[in-house]
């Protein structure tokens, strides 16, 4: 069953809206720099949403704030903002930072004094993304916050698809959000996968990822709902699947079998053969392991002619937002007829069999594939169609 996208909300360092995002893609602009959101001794460029001005939701977690703003954009895009209140809709949102109580000052004070103010606890308790969106929009319906690490955004879209396909709702808001936060910044640092320079996906000299932040939200609808509203779709989610490596806590399975299963499953779900895919938005974090495994699987399945890229060079790794933002970027690319060059890529690693596009590239056809991989062996793939 096809699921229709009638609204998009995309917020990242590449841009706070579609126009700004496309301008970054077009010019190769990479808005990374020193971390300004918190003090840190770790030297790694970060992709912050610098001029995020829509703080009219005061006293909430930054992650929820980013998510609400992107949700509002998606609802406006779908002409639903005014009529959503009181409706039954599904909300599936992925996050990593938004799910943890990780306030360092709270914990330090509790440990040292045996007591601490509850402010950060209260923010956390109000910060669950899907519950928070339901509360803000005054809607009811299925609600799930997906915490599948860096595949969460893609998985949340998958959850909403399951709801729509089984009739639990006929409109769903799905995506992911994460803020740049000190704790994962330190954690990724300790795992040795933060690059001290701008990230370079699939490049011979790649040294790791840069963290980013943002939110990607898709407004998904069943065919009946869309027709009832006389709304035209911007895209169709044709296929989705996900799989688990059952291999390692942090490293991808070197064989890539899980990713291969996810991509193959998504193509079967979409009833398409690999050669129907116009381009691939790869997970491409620019870590040694991720890019090696991913490129090999893409080569196995698609050969060496299907153009592919990673957009991490424009956004940094936005963790749980990545899968949803990149599904949105696929839609923009299908609409525009071109994909941006893989920012940061210069020289191919001889161990990697295929090169991403280095320049902005025209694309033909109607179908895009977006892949996501995450800690815990999560692999997810989405097939996105541009409607005729």
């Amino acid at each position, binding site marked *: 069953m096809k699921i229709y996208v009638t609204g998009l909300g995309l917020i990242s360092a590449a841009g706070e809206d579609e126009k700004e995002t496309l301008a970054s893609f077009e010019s190769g602009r990479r808005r990374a720099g020193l971390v300004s959101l918190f003090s*840190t*001794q*770790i030297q790694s460029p970060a992709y912050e949403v610098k001029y995020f001005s829509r703080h009219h939701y005061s006293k909430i977690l930054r992650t929820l704030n980013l998510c609400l703003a992107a949700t509002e954009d998606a609802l406006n895009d779908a002409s639903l903002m005014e009529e959503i209140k009181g409706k039954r809709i599904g909300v599936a949102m992925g996050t*990593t930072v938004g*799910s*943890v*109580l*990780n306030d*360092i000052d709270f*914990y*330090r004070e*509790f*440990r040292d004094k045996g*007591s601490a103010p*509850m402010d950060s*606890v209260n923010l956390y*308790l109000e910060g*669950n993304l*899907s*519950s928070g969106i339901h509360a803000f929009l005054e809607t*009811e319906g*299925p*609600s*799930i*916050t*997906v*915490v*599948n*690490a860096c595949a969460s955004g893609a998985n949340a879209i998958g*959850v909403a698809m*399951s*709801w729509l*396909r*089984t009739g*639990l709702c006929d409109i769903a808001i799905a995506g992911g959000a994460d803020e740049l936060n*000190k*704790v994962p*910044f*330190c*954690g990724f*640092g*300790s*795992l*040795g996968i933060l690059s001290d320079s701008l990230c370079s996906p699939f490049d011979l000299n790649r040294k790791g990822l840069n963290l980013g932040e943002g939110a990607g939200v898709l407004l998904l609808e069943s065919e009946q709902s869309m027709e009832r509203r006389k709304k035209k779709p911007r895209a169709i989610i044709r296929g989705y*699947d996900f*799989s*688990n*490596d*059952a*291999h*390692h*806590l*942090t490293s991808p399975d070197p064989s890539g*079998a899980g990713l291969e*299963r996810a991509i193959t499953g998504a193509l079967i779900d979409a009833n398409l053969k690999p050669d129907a895919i116009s381009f691939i938005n790869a997970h491409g974090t620019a870590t040694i392991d991720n890019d090696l495994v991913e490129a090999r699987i893409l080569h196995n399945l698609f050969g060496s002619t299907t153009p592919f890229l990673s957009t991490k060079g424009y956004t940094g790794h936005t963790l749980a937002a990545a899968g949803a933002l990149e599904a949105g970027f696929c839609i923009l690319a299908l609409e525009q007829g071109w994909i941006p060059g893989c920012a940061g890529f210069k020289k191919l690693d001889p161990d990697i069999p295929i090169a991403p596009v280095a320049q902005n590239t025209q694309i033909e056809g109607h179908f895009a594939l977006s892949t996501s991989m*995450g*800690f*815990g*062996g*999560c692999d997810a793939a989405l097939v996105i169609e541009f409607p005729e």
Partner: protein
Amino acid sequence: MKPVFIEGIGIISTRGRGLNKFEQALKEGWVEPTVSADGRKAYRVPKDALIDYNILKKVKRSDRFSRLTVFAACDAIHNSGLDIADLDKSSIGIIVATAFGPHATIFKVLEDIIDYGEKKVSPTTFAHSIHNAAASYVASALGCTGPVMTTTQFYFSFQQALLLASSWLNEGRLKKVLVGIVDECSPAMEYICEEKLSVAQNGKMSPLSCLKQPKFVPGEGSAFFLVSHDSKKKKYGAFTEIEITGDSHGWSDVDLSIIGTNAMGGSEEVYKDVLNEGIPVAAYSSIYGGFMTGNAFECVAAALMLKNQTQYASANVDGAESWNVVEKSKKRELNQIQCISHNNKRQLAFIKMMK
């Protein structure tokens, strides 16, 4: 909703590991909670419940949260009579629902940052502080390569996860789903409970009194159900309806209602809307403590009662008004049971189960 049949159950509670221990606890009723070194009362899982070399060798390095998860998940498979080696590993999905995730491990990461600095955080601890580490261990321990998902809500986590499991089965995506919950206590979380909630100093929770300011004792544990659409594999009845929020007042054709304690949910007055002199009602949360995903424990209790055709006496009847409270354990014909939970907005969620 198409019935979702229960093939196997695994549970770890303050009374130990396994369905037998949980059933024994239901029969025995309320006991004193455990008391920590800092004097806080909580229903904690005993250490010996998480020692089993056969499982631990598959999940070396795992933290306590992951072990709570893996043990109950593996037990649900064993309980169904399936051997892990014989599982069709690509056709089983896994959903782990949690309210607070591995927060004790997250606090350890913060401790590293505070004590050693930003550049000396243990990578292993950080890797375990990510919510889906536990589910990843379940996948590894079982060798499951199908969809594995961790979800988090503060209220109705289990209900939402069960609804998703039902969707996956309806879509034909999978043949079986291992769906369950896990949440743990820690000194910091017990402190938060103390600040946010009123802790029952006598160790007794009394949800049947439907108080505006109820008293709680924090709890922890894990519970997993192996479910499918295959009625022939049914071992403990089925989940037949799930209603979350909305206007539902539950079902009048059930033989028993079980109400839960959704710690952090505050006022339990809303239960008055659905309790009456008719349908017998029971609460068991004072046996295992209050936690946000604890409604899965009520479903385990219901599954056991449906299988054994036995009702267990409500664990604490203090303050109950003229409800038809189950005061005695006895054999009784039970065809349908509903499990009821509430959130902090005076809304209810219902899970209906059938023999």
